[in-house]
């Protein structure tokens, strides 16, 4: 049987062949598509095997390839944490590749399928390398590969000017983030004299508390930008929808998690003795991200943008778990820290699964209706029943409804936060209170949002010509969505088993080593250590099945003698039409109004009359409800204005006169000489 290392190398080779082959066959769309996605799927399958062997057979490996640069080494390491992320990446990439085989067909003869295959494979390889890189410089190289590949995937549909704009924003923001990451690594290098993660970890005692704090801030901004936390998320709602749907599933479900991976790697593995305020900051940012993410999702009409906002929300939820871990570690409650970290990791896995499912469902709908505006859908359940069913499962999972996986991880997060509320430290206590309140709000609003999305998209009547002529998607799309739907249920019902596996990952981290088993399983029920709560996911499933069966039986029993009469719908004298249906805007209006302080809605009403002169009988009445991006208005716009102003001043320095440039050199030279001498 192949070792984990061999599987991993084979995975990378397959992805490389997939990349190059796609380009080689670029003139033949169908071959290029099959080639690219088949090799991506094969590479992901081997990645999955590598991760599974490490996680379940303890086949940890590390190896290094020589480099001509002294401080750079192509160093890889797959420990439990890396293996977990490789597992998540490979699992989703495997299914998106199967999905892609069918989905990409609608791009034939419109866009370059060869370049899509090339960047898609490079993107997956980049992500796998990011979570296994063991040297900061090598990490930056693969981080850039991942970023550039995803950038080209975002602008794949380049005929749309909006996509180019979204790509540019993503490119700028992600590179600002990278600048912060580089600074963090340089500081670590300055203190430890090495870019090697292992050396930095072993020499962490040399890093002063101030340096650690600065590294925290820099890494939090740098990796937080990739993770899409508020207020660094500005690129996410426009970039994720712009990419092809199976890429959106990867970006939203997996890529943003690489930021979370680095948070865990740096704050819990490399840097020991984390101060309390790191955890508090993470809890507060997580609360804001989850709440604002779901609020903006509620007011969105673009189905992919809405899902992208939910990614921000879910990253917020993951941060709540991670923030709790850091806070518990600082308070010396390592056992609870492990529970909280399991919650964060579990939600990372769950979000990847249900978000990929939802993006695939959205992609399936978009490929048939050719629009992302949910106001133009409606009634698709009759035309696309499988897609509707799978989307419903995804919606239930993201809304944290049992027995699906979203419930299990959010329940664990809640338990961590409730445990934190009992903390003796007042600041920590109130941070946990805020976080728990925010999570409760978020859960409710997410459910409301998905009632809106599912209702407006799949129920009632079609509201556009294209929606009324939609048909079910191809088999490859249905298969991948079906597998993800099954996984949402399996990960939910077997949450105890998953939590136990994740406790192994958590306990392997430097900070949490030897803290004891946090979650136990007894007859597939999940029980957290020391405290208060236990839940049996199989029990919930069984209970739900019993309730449904009993309800069906009772209804059948009661109505067995009643005749079914079909009559005309009561229609108030007018024929039922899509105009009588509630729209997405109408649905979210009341919630948007409640949160008007944050969302700052603007309403524009247009009326068209039958007779413009008499103006008694309205023909159509349109309400256009828009919300204001407060972070854009109060954070990015002032920064943008400041940069423009400063640039205008700086422009004067660059006069185009050679003499002036030499003068600058002269002044700097004199200053350097004098300062050198003084020193």
């Amino acid at each position: 049987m192949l070792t984990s290392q061999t599987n991993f190398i084979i995975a990378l080779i397959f992805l490389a062949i997939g990349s190059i082959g796609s380009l080689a066959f670029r003139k033949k769309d169908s071959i290029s598509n099959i080639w690219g996605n088949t090799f991506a799927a094969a590479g992901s399958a081997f990645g999955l095997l590598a991760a599974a062997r490490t996680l379940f057979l303890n086949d940890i490996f590390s190896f290094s390839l020589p480099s001509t640069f002294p401080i750079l080494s192509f160093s890889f390491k797959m420990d439990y944490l890396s293996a977990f992320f490789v597992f998540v990446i490979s699992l989703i990439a495997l299914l998106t590749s199967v999905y892609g085989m069918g989905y990409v067909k609608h791009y034939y003869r419109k866009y370059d399928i060869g370049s899509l295959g090339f960047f898609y494979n490079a993107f997956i390889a980049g992500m796998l390398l990011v979570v296994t890189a063991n040297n900061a410089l090598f990490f930056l190289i693969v981080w850039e590969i991942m970023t550039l590949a995803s950038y080209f995937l975002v602008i794949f549909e380049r005929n749309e000017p909006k996509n180019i704009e979204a790509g540019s924003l993503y490119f700028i923001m992600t590179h600002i983030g990278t600048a912060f990451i580089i600074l963090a690594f340089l500081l670590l290098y300055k203190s430890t004299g090495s870019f090697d993660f292992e050396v930095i970890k072993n020499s962490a005692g040399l890093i002063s508390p101030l340096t650690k704090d600065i590294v925290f801030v820099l890494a939090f901004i740098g990796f937080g930008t990739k993770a899409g936390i508020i207020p660094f998320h500005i690129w996410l709602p426009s970039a994720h929808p712009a990419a092809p749907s199976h890429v959106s599933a990867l970006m939203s479900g997996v890529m943003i998690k690489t930021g979370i991976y680095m948070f865990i790697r740096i704050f819990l593995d490399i840097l020991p003795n984390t101060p309390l305020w790191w955890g508090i900051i993470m809890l507060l940012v997580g609360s804001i991200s989850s709440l604002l993410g779901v609020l903006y999702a509620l007011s969105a009409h673009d189905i992919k943008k809405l899902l992208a906002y939910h990614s921000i929300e879910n990253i917020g939820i993951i941060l709540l778990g991670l923030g709790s871990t850091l806070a518990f570690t600082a308070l010396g409650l390592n056992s609870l820290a492990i529970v909280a970290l399991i919650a964060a990791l579990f939600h990372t896995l769950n979000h990847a699964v249900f978000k990929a499912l939802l993006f695939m469902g959205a992609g399936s709908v978009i490929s048939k209706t050719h629009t992302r505006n949910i106001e133009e859908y409606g009634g698709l359940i009759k035309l696309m029943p499988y897609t509707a069913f799978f989307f419903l499962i995804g919606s239930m999972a993201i809304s944290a409804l049992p027995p699906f996986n979203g419930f299990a991880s959010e329940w664990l997060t809640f338990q961590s936060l409730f445990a934190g509320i009992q903390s003796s430290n007042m600041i920590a206590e109130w941070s946990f209170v805020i976080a728990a309140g925010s999570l409760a709000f978020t859960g409710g609003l997410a459910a409301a949002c998905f009632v809106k999305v599912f209702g407006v998209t799949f129920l009632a009547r079609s509201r556009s010509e294209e929606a009324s002529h939609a048909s079910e998607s191809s088999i490859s799309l249905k298969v991948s969505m079906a597998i993800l739907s099954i996984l949402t249920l399996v990960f939910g019902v077997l949450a105890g088993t998953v939590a136990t596996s994740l406790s192994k990952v958590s306990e392997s981290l430097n900070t949490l080593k030897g803290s004891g088993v946090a979650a136990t399983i007894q007859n597939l029920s999940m029980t957290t250590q020391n405290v208060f709560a236990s839940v049996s996911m199989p029990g919930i499933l069984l209970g739900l099945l019993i309730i449904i069966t009993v309800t069906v039986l009772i209804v059948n029993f009661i109505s067995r003698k009643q005749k079914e009469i079909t009559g005309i719908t009561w229609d108030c004298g007018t024929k039922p039409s899509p105009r009588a249906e509630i729209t997405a805007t109408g649905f979210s209006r009341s919630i948007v109004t409640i949160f008007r302080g944050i969302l700052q809605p603007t309403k524009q009403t247009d009326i068209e009359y039958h007779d413009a002169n008499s103006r008694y009988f309205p023909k159509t009445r349109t309400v256009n409800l828009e919300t204001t991006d407060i972070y854009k208005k109060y954070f990015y716009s002032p920064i943008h204005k400041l940069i423009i102003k400063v640039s205008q001043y700086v422009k004067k320095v660059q006069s185009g006169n050679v003499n002036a440039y030499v003068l600058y050199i002269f002044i700097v030279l004199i200053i350097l000489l004098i300062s050198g001498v003084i020193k």
Partner: protein
Amino acid sequence: MEQLIAPQFLFIAGIVVFLTVIAMHLIKKSISVVYFYVIQSSMISLLLLYSSFVRHSFFVLAVTMLITAVKIIIAPGFFLRLIKKNELKFSASSYLNMPMTLIAITIITAIARSRFFHPLTVINPTNESTLLISIAAMLISLFMIINRKGALSQMIGVLSLENSIVSFAFTAGLEQKPGLELGITFDIFVWIIIATVFVSMVYKKFKTLDVTEMSRLKG
């Protein structure tokens, strides 16, 4: 490296380099600037020649010959041809007028001889004065590039800076291997050719070599 050249000779060479740089500032005629550059380069060649005799090195002698050819024959030849071809008799205008230029040179020389640069003389305490004079020559050459508007004067300023650095290196005992010096000479040679061709093209297009009138290089 052991100091083989007599301090007196080094001092004279340093003074010549220093004075020629000042002279280049004071005169307006482009052709005279070139002649002063020839004097300055001749001094540097003499220094190298002296070094080759003292070190009994044929290779250094060969390098000296090459440097002489580049700095005293080829480079001035290029410049004189350029002046003749484009009739650049009085292109050496400057930003500062003469009194202000002299004040600036005085300040630069004072800075070079101040306590800030004194620690640099530990490289070779025997030639302390020469070292400081060479530093002053370097800074004044740089100032020439800043103060002169004409591209030709700026090019000569760059070459004068290079001569000052060579003078400093000799005084400090930082002479390099002949191979490296050969490389530097080749570098200068290529630079002169490119710069001359470039200046010639710019003049053809703009009918001036005044850099203040060349801020928009769109033609």
